[in-house]
């Protein structure tokens, strides 16, 4: 039973980052800067985009309701006198919220609405150039057929137009609504028309270097060359992941597995964490020094 679990757990750990890199490769697009460095942009996936849209819609509806309540209060407060001004302002605010909310926020330096910002997304020009105002206007004008038309079909009184026409309209709109799911770059119709796409712009923190911080006293762990040649870069990255998360159970399992693989004899009072940190540092040193000589050992099966 124990053996079974020990076998199973590390494989899932190894498998998930493997899948992740395959997943990343599908979403990864090259953006070569004028300095000649590829930035490896990652596209926002459909789930994140949908979540961002829902957040934005919630904000729009929320602001509209709050503003309507305020105008109602103002109307009653003024005893119907300033009705003109209040009605005019309300209509203009409604117009701005409905048609210009996305445009205004995407014109800011962050090129993202609050919803997109919350999901770590931003809009970028597909050709890597400047994101211009006309592109932002174009991509958001298209929301009219992608978003508001289907919504109006849902809201419209069915007894007036008949259920079948309503259904047909909804189907027709569905083509536009689900358009992003049917192309490789997850482009909306608006993105296609404006030449933009939505990419991830995550803020990452600079985390401490594992090889420096968690290094135990030197000399306690001395690995032979053969022991360090057991693994490649892929396994190193998995090990990094494990060490950064530092879940006691996984640490114990991975340590046991590595010890078995390289034939390491456990010294008394040797902690699993220390062993893994030391092995990580030594393995990285070995692989990096080979990297300097132009040999990148992909994974443990790579015999170069």
């Amino acid at each position: 039973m124990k053996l079974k679990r020990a076998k199973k757990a590390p494989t899932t750990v190894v498998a998930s980052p493997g899948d992740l890199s395959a997943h990343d490769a599908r979403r990864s697009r090259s953006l070569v800067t004028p300095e000649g460095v590829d930035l490896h942009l990652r596209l926002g996936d459909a789930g994140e985009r949908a979540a961002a849209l829902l957040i934005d819609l919630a904000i729009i509806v929320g602001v509209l309701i709050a503003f309507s309540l305020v105008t109602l209060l103002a109307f009653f407060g003024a005893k119907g006198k300033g009705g003109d001004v209040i009605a005019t302002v309300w209509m203009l605010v409604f117009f701005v919220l409905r048609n210009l909310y996305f445009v205004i926020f995407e014109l800011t330096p962050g090129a993202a609405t609050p919803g997109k910002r919350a999901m770590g997304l931003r809009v970028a020009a597909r050709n890597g150039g400047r994101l211009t105002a006309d592109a932002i206007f174009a991509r958001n004008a298209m929301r009219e057929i992608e978003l508001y038309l289907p919504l109006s079909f849902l809201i419209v009184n069915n007894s007036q137009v008949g259920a079948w026409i309503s259904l047909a309209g909804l189907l027709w709109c569905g083509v536009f609504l689900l358009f992003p799911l049917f192309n490789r770059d997850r482009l909306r119709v608006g993105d296609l028309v404006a030449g933009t796409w939505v990419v991830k712009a995550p803020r990452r923190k600079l985390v401490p270097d594992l090889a420096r911080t968690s290094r135990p006293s030197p000399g306690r762990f001395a690995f032979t060359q053969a022991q360090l040649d057991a693994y490649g870069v892929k396994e190193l990255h998995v090990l990094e992941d494990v060490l950064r998360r530092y879940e006691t159970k996984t640490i114990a399992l991975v340590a046991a597995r590595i010890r078995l693989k390289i034939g390491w004899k456990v010294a008394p009072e040797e902690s699993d964490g220390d062993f893994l940190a030391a092995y990580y540092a030594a393995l990285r040193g070995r692989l990096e020094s080979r990297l300097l000589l132009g040999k990148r050992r992909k994974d443990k099966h790579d015999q170069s």
Partner: protein
Amino acid sequence: MEQLQLKSSRFRAEREDDWRRLEKLLAKVGKGSARALSDEELLAMPVLYRQALSSLSVARATSLDQSLVDYLESLSTRAYFFVYGTRSSLVERLSGFFAREWPAAAKALWRETLFSFALTLIGVAAAYYLTMHDTEWFHAFVPESLAGGRGPAATTEAMRATLYDKGGDHSGLSVFAAFLFTHNSGVAIFAFALGFAFCLPTAMLMTYNGAMLGAFLAAFTMRGLGFEAGGWLAIHGVTEISAVILAGAAGLRIGWTLAFPGDQSRPAAMAQAGRQSATLMAGVVVMLFCAGILEGVGRQVIQNDFARYGIALATLILWPAYLYLPRRRKAGS
């Protein structure tokens, strides 16, 4: 201990401060705008950006610290978007739009504009002809809510009354203007977006819009009120109908490009067409704003037919002159 340290760790220790400084500047920009930075910081930005990029290249080639490479990628990407992003101020952008971009877009879409104009004209002619022959057609073209009591069945006096504002009470005009502007802009943007479906819905919308106009004119001409109705319509109609025709042209351009992208690849052609039409659409919204004021306020205040025609004529000259007259090129541009 020192010689045990990895080369990649030493590399990181040497440059970490610069990365952190760049990160701090970017956070500052993210909160406010580029103006949040002092001159010194603004000058440091491109230098720090290039350092981060070169660090990224080195890290990719020599470091196996995955989190470090990820961090540098995200840092460089954010700095790239800042360094190569747009930084012109709102005033510069607006003046550029009115001085160059909008007329240039209108000129570039002249073929679509002509086509859209022709469709509207066909709609007007067909509906006028049909309604003159059989008044029942009026109801086919004009929905009841829009007709508002006008129509072949109404008396001449009632028809005349709809053309002129009786009382001197001008309250509610701003509401009316705001309603007209927001409603028409919504419809225009909708007409533009519909163009994506291979032009057809936009073309139909243009023809139908013309048909409504034709039916209206026919209903008034039958009562000998053609001249008065013309003034009532033209004071804002010149601006409004031109705006709708331009919106249709913008929609036709994207639909046409989607079907026939020409020499470029389809996405590239679409992007170019989309941006050009969007510029024109922004102009359309401006025109509809003017039309809203002319219709909501001007038409109610001005009751004289000749004054109405005068304003209509002025708009008829001004808009095309602004959009289509050739202008001097700026030196160097």
